[in-house]
């Protein structure tokens, strides 16, 4: 192809203002501004704080992305934006900014699904997505197993968490163990110094539960079990073996995630598994997934950690695929859809 489309992607579904720029399947810039510090003192994401931060971060982040990519906005061929799912007020800032750019620059707009974008980002890392691909998305906001025949048009949800997201479980258990926030990396590091000595429960893996929730997840019971185990230890005056508890907890989570992901691949005859989301940075998840995929003859793809968390590059990557595959752009009147289903890849 002589001209690869230059696509700018905007992501504002939670607390990161992300602007990515992609030319075809090549990542040129991935600028991000996070309001995480402003939320920490509230003990969670405050939607209004996130929305205000998106408004203030939009232009500076746009400028940074263009500078890094070495492009001018007038060079952009299409704009893509997370239309949902996410926090309504936060999404609206990104959607309005994207529409404004589209009108000012006279280019098409693609309002895309955030989860589909998590899958598409691997294209700029490892090349074209095998079709179909199985995707395991695990973060503080998502725990989904997706069958992806075509990331620009066709995604089916095979399973998701019925209570806590996987990343939430890491954060909560970290707090119980007195480890700093965010929990994921600290549990990972602590676990590497410990042994898997405790057999914590694996949610939705037995009997009736497994029948009804074959590819769904549950981490609430595990979190409670860890809590109780630590409390009992403390009450009896014994020291809590933090590294061993971390290792055992982590093993329980990644065991279920990888087992179900590989089982889903087998059930659907899919030979490629991609893992995305913030929890994809977990070293044990990567190792065990690799081991089980190798044994099952499945190719495993995991983007680098910076591309697994929420970012603009993933939105730009999916937008570029929309252009390359000739998908019909979104209408300028699309809403921000806080509960956009994953089956709706493009608004």
């Amino acid at each position, binding site marked *: 192809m002589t001209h690869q489309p230059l696509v700018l992607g905007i992501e504002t579904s*939670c*607390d*990161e203002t992300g602007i990515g720029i992609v030319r075809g399947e090549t990542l040129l810039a991935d600028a991000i501004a*996070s309001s*995480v510090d402003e*939320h920490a003192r*509230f*003990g*969670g*994401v*405050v*939607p*209004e*704080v996130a*929305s*205000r931060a998106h*408004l203030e971060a*939009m*232009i500076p982040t*746009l400028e940074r992305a263009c500078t890094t990519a070495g492009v001018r*906005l*007038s060079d952009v061929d299409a704009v893509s934006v997370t239309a949902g799912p*996410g*926090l309504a*007020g936060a999404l*609206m*800032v990104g*959607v*309005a*900014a994207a*529409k*404004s*750019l*589209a*009108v*000012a*620059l*006279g280019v098409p707009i693609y309002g895309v699904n955030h989860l589909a974008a998590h899958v598409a980002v691997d294209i700029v890392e490892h090349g074209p997505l095998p079709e179909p691909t199985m995707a395991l998305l695990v*973060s*503080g*906001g998502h725990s989904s197993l997706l069958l992806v025949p075509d990331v620009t048009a066709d995604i089916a949800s095979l399973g998701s968490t019925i*209570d*806590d*997201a996987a990343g*939430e479980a890491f*954060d*909560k258990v970290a707090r119980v163990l007195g480890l700093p*926030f*965010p*929990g*994921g990396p600290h549990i990972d590091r602590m676990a590497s110094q410990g042994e898997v000595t405790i057999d914590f429960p694996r949610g939705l893996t037995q009997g009736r539960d497994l029948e009804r929730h074959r590819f769904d997840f549950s981490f*609430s019971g595990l979190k409670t079990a860890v809590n109780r185990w630590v409390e009992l230890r403390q009450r009896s005056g014994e020291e809590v073996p933090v590294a061993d508890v971390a290792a055992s907890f982590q093993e329980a989570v990644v065991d279920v995630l990888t087992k179900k992901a590989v089982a889903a691949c087998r059930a659907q005859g899919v030979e490629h598994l991609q893992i995305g*989301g*913030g929890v994809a940075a977990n070293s044990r998840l990567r190792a065990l997934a690799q081991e089980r995929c190798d044994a099952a003859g499945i190719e495993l793809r995991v983007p680098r950690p910076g591309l697994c*968390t*929420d970012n603009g590059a993933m939105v730009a990557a999916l937008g570029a695929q929309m252009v390359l595959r000739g998908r019909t752009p979104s209408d*300028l*009147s699309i*809403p*921000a859809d806080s509960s956009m289903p994953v089956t709706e890849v493009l608004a």
Partner: protein
Amino acid sequence: MKLLAMDTSTSAITVAIHDGTVVLAERSVIDARAHTEHLAPLITQILSEAGLAPGDLTDVAVGVGPGPFTGLRVGLVTARTFAHALDIPVHGVVSLDALAHEAMSSERLDDGDELVVATDARRKEVYVARYAVASGAVLRITEPAVTYPADVPETFRALPAVGRGAVLYPETFPTRVGPLDVSAGALAEVAVAQVAAGVEVGLDALYLRRPDATPSAVSKSTVMAPRGAKR
């Protein structure tokens, strides 16, 4: 001058184009819950109505509020981004000023006359400011504030009242006059006058309220989960 004006601080999503002398075109939709949906299509419509391409514009003006946050931000981020993309200046206008300005014309107010602008701040509150007409223009004589109607000063209540607040709280504002929602044409006129006078209001949103510090049910691995959240 070809100035694109917009405001989303009231129930109206409103856009206009001003050439430095008169308003060339204006369009509004009343839909308090769908600012994101209407604004961009309205901008494309008004541009084609005025026979202009985006690149023909020289300035952007936007209402900075006060107004309900979610809608207000749609206008602000749209205006800022639009001006940034075209590399042209963007001017802020206090949205209540546009309502006062329009009422002055429609009600044929004279020098010395006073009025109060009261818009819906939701949660049973209003955004208010008091104005006086001087030298054929409206002059804001109090800072915009958010308050319960019951707490609006006596001195404001006797004045002709402009905006949806007067419809919602007739006991507080018995003398309702003028427009209910902001019109971008009026806002453009205020902006043009400000530019001529060398006045810049700035582009900070006039929220006038702190965010409610209730964490969302949505949390993610990069932020702390709600403390003690039960599921």
